[in-house]
Structure formats: structure tokens, C-alpha cells
């Protein structure tokens, strides 16, 4: 049955309300505190390390994000760890929370479609994350200016902004996943646990599993280089099913201009290459393009899954 009327009706109202909720919620304030502390701490440590070790580097500012100093991990390692947590925290009770508060049927009886409710919640959570990321990025930049005295070049700023965009895409995956679980499970605790379980699986066990599977399916015997290549390719292919791998590769390319390939490189391909020279931004972007597309596609697929389930769900409690 075709329906009349725009699915966007009320989207703005839902988004604004949810955004206000997120920004004032204790949950978000706690997470913000956690992120800012760890991120600033690691960036500060990186600055110290850079002062001590690096004399000259054309991309000193970008090093601020990637350098680690024992015992702290680097800024991006922290972010890769905390972003899924924040996204899950913002999405895990999106729909079942409304069900349990018995507000859903009241909201849906207003002249809006369900589309507006789900999309509005998604956009509001994404905007919350974007706002925090931007603040964080500016803080780290300021820290770099103060501690290292480096002024980021235009290209570095562009790379930094692209890095934020990729992080947002990565957050989108976990947000869409958590929201989908919030449609499937009636209890917020269940959907939170399910989301965290998926995240743990991807973050910890997937790499182990991929290594095992690649070793079994494409065994390397007697140092055969072709077998070795086949195994590496399989391992890479499988690992790239995980959003964590995609995100890590994007960051590697965007924040290290020297990186020129994400897969195995043959000697023949290096002919004429000047090792160690940085790639221009356009080339780096081209290199990370499939990964960026993958992040976006995964977000869309997960959101679409949650959307379909939500449309088919009965309203009554």
C-alpha cells in the first residue's frame, strides 16, 4: 500500500530533541570526560616524545596523533577503542527505551512517520559525536601549537578533517548496530550487551580467527612464495570484513603520507619509486578510498537493517 506525505515530516523536531537530550545527559558527560582525559593525555605524551626524539619531520603535526609513548597508547589507538563505546552508549536504548517509557505510541500518533523517529535519533547521535570529535581535534591542535610550536600546514589540516570524517563513519557503524539491536531486543541491557559482544568479537577475536582460518585454508609449506602470497591475501581479505581493520587502514594512510600501499608489494612495483617520500593528499585518499567506502556502506547496511525491522515492528507494548 503506498502512503502519502513526506517521510521527513518532523525529522528536524526529533533530531533537535534527541540532540538536546544527548548533550545534557549524564551518560554523555561521563563519556566526554573519559575521552577528553585519555585523548589529551596521550596527545600530551606524544608531544613529549616528539620533542625528545624527532628533529625534523615534514608532517610533525600529524605525528601528534600517531606517536605513542610507553605506557600510553597513541591518540588514534585510544580513539579507535573509545569511539565504538560512545556510539554504542548513544544508540543501545534508542527504540526500546521509548518502548519501555511507553512514549513510542504517543510519539508515533503525532503526524510523522517512523522514518523521522529513527533517522532523527541516528542523526542526533552522530551530530553529538561529531561535535565532540571536532572539539577534541581542536584541543589536540592547540596542544601541538603550545607544546611543539608547529603550525599545521593546509594539507595537514585537510588530512586531519578527513580523519575526523573517517572516524565519524566508523562511529556510524557502531551506532547503527546498537540502534538495530535496540529495535530487536526489548530490554536495553540486552541490546547493550549484544552490541558490546559484537564489538569485542571484532576487536579481539576476529584477528585471531582470521589468522587461524588463513593458516588452515592456505597453508604455507616449504617457504613457497606463492602459497605465502595466497595466505596473505586471504588473511587481508578476511580481516577487511571487520570495520576495525578498515578504520585502522584509513587512519594509517591518511595520517602517514609515506604509506603507499595497504597490501603486499612486489619488488617490480617499486621500480622507480623514491622510498620514504610522502604521497600527495589526493593519492593518499585514493589509496584509502575502498576502505572509506566500506565504512560508509557498512553504516548504511546496518541502518537499513534496523530501519526495516523498525517499520515492521508492532507499536503496542
Amino acid at each position, binding site marked *: 500500500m*503506498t502512503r502519502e506525505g513526506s517521510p521527513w*515530516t518532523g525529522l528536524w*523536531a526529533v533530531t533537535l530533541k534527541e540532540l538536546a537530550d544527548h548533550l545534557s545527559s549524564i551518560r554523555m558527560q561521563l563519556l566526554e570526560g573519559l575521552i577528553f582525559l585519555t585523548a589529551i593525555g596521550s596527545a600530551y605524551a606524544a608531544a613529549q616524545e616528539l620533542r625528545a626524539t624527532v628533529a625534523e619531520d615534514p608532517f610533525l603535526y600529524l605525528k601528534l596523533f600517531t606517536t605513542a609513548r610507553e605506557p600510553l597508547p597513541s591518540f588514534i589507538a585510544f580513539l579507535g577503542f573509545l569511539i565504538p563505546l560512545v556510539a554504542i552508549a548513544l544508540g543501545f536504548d534508542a527504540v526500546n527505551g521509548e518502548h519501555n*517509557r511507553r512514549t513510542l505510541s504517543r510519539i508515533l500518533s*503525532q503526524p510523522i512517520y517512523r522514518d523521522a523517529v529513527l533517522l532523527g535519533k541516528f542523526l542526533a547521535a552522530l551530530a553529538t559525536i561529531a561535535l565532540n570529535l571536532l572539539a577534541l581535534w581542536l584541543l589536540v591542535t592547540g596542544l601541538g601549537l603550545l607544546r611543539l610550536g608547529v603550525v599545521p600546514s593546509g594539507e595537514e589540516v585537510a588530512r586531519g578533517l578527513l580523519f575526523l570524517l573517517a572516524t565519524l563513519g566508523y562511529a556510524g557503524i557502531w551506532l547503527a548496530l546498537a540502534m538495530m539491536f535496540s529495535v530487536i531486543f526489548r530490554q536495553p541491557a540486552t541490546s547493550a550487551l549484544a552490541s558490546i559482544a559484537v564489538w569485542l568479537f571484532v576487536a579481539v577475536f576476529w584477528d585471531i580467527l582470521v589468522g587461524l582460518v588463513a593458516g588452515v585454508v592456505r597453508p604455507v609449506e616449504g617457504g613457497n612464495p606463492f602459497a605465502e602470497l595466497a595466505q596473505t591475501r586471504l588473511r587481508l581479505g578476511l580481516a577487511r570484513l571487520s570495520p576495525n581493520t578498515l578504520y585502522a587502514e584509513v587512519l594509517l594512510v591518511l595520517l602517514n603520507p609515506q604509506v603507499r600501499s595497504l597490501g603486499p608489494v612486489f619488488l617490480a612495483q617499486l621500480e622507480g619509486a623514491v622510498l620514504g617520500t610522502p604521497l600527495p593528499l589526493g593519492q593518499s585518499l585514493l589509496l584509502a578510498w575502498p576502505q572509506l567506502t566500506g565504512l560508509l556502506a557498512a553504516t548504511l547496511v546496518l541502518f537499513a537493517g534496523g530501519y526495516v525491522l523498525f517499520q515492521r515492528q508492532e507499536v*503496542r*507494548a
Partner: protein
Amino acid sequence: MSTPVIVAEGLTKRYGTVLAVDHLSLTLRQGEVFGMLGPNGSGKTTTILMLLGLTDRTEGNVSVLGDDPSRRPLAVKRRVGYLPDSVGFYDELTARENLTYTARLNGLSRREGEQRIDAALAGAGLTAVADRRVGTFSRGMRQRLGLADVLIKRPEITILDEPTAGLDPEAALEFLELIRTLKGQGITVLLSSHLLHQVQAVCDRVGLFSQGRMVLEGSFEVLADRVLGGAYRIIVEAGGDTLTPALTAVPGVRAVRVERPGVYHLDAQVDCRAEVARTLVQRGAALTGLSLVRPTLDEIYARYFQEARA
């Protein structure tokens, strides 16, 4: 008769093999208060959800204010207010903030929204607590806030699902009074409940629901007539010999039951107390009491389901 605002024909909803609503036909006219009466699980809420387009029907036709709620749900929901069963609010927001969200969802301008919110809060008697968090509200206050929430959009039809369930008697009475004011404003009200005496207090017409079908429909007198065999019950207290034959012979009396010696219950189609008194006095019986009892919906309800089971 005024124009019909809700017309449903052959309305059916199937959940898998379960028939939740079974070829229901329903017509509501403008300005009337219609009560849907029935036990839990008899299809009342499902019917309401289909009227609002919140659930798609399996079969049948529905027109609400001239629009099909499944095809043009926004047009219908703009003009129909719905107070769900045990309505919820955002506890961390104030009453006014909750209503502001509703006003925004209805696309009202800020100014228009504020005016309507003030009016709705005043109408529900919540002006004094408008800026308190809803988390501190009692159940009765929440329910009244729910009604204020419905009134924000200035509905032509208001659908109330179990509006008085869980309220203490005083709060329930207050709420029924609010429903009467809706009727006074010319708003058509569709009310579902299993609390019969409350339905009786406010409804013009009642439909009795059972297993997804509306088994009886009509004004309260019509229902009483159909189920109890008479809309009037007369209690006669009189001494002397058995008076059953004489009472049965009184015109209009359908049945006579001896409640205990000297006390007779009469089911009558008309108020025939004068006739009864005359008959008894002529027979020389010692008439000590004669009173008229209107049967309650509870009785109709209980009797109907007894008979349905038998």
C-alpha cells in the same frame, strides 16, 4: 443525524493464525462519545491502532474524517488525537517541555505552540505544575497530561484507550469530567474501557467487544433491552401470598423473580411502577416498598458473557 466521522467496514486484523479483529463494522458520528467495551484481548486496542494507521489492517475499509489511515496517515494523525493505554512521558523533562515536543512534531510555530500548551495545561488543571519534571507526577496527573498532550493538536476526534485504568476513584471522576468537556467542545470521542460504570457515565453509545467482534452495539437502553430483556428493573416489597402471577400480568413486565420471600425483582420494558402499585393494592397486598433500579452496564456485561459461555 450529524455526519459520520469514522466509518469502518469489514475491518480485519490477523496476527499469523490469530484473528485479533474479525470483520468489524463501526460508524461514529460527529460529536458523539462512543464507548468500546470488552475484556482484555477482545481487539479494542488493535482496532484503535488500525483507525490511526499505526497498524496495517489485513482486510476491510476504513475512512477517518474522509481519509484512509493506511494511505494518508499523516492527514489522519494531524486531526485525530490518541491517548494510548498507560501513556508515557520523558520523565527528565518538565510537563511543558514534553508538550513542546508534541507541538514541534505537529509542526506548530513556537508562538502558536506556546499558546496551545498554556490552554491545554489549564484545561487539564496542570498549570501549577507545568514546570515540574514529569518524573514527580502521580498517575492521575500523568493521565491528565496525556489528555493535554492530545489537545495540543486541536483534534476533531479523540481516541482514548483505557483512560481511567489504574486511577483512584477521585482521579477517575476528574478525568471523566474532562472527557465531558471534550464533548462540550464538539469533539468526537472514542473511548475504550473495561470499567463499565465509567463508560456508562460518559458515553452516548456503546459497543460490546468480544473476541475481535462487536457483538452488541447501541445506546445503553438498547443494550439493556437486548441483553437483560428490559431496561428497567423494579423492586417490589410486599407481604401476603405469592404475588408472582399478578405481577407477571402487569403490562410491560417481562419477568418476575422472587429474590427472597416478600421481595420481587421485575424486569420491565417501561416504568410501570404505578400499574404495579395499583394491582397490588387492588389485591389487598401489603405494599411496603417500590423502587426502580436502572441496570448497570456491569450487569449487561456479566449477563452477556454468561450467556455467551452457556
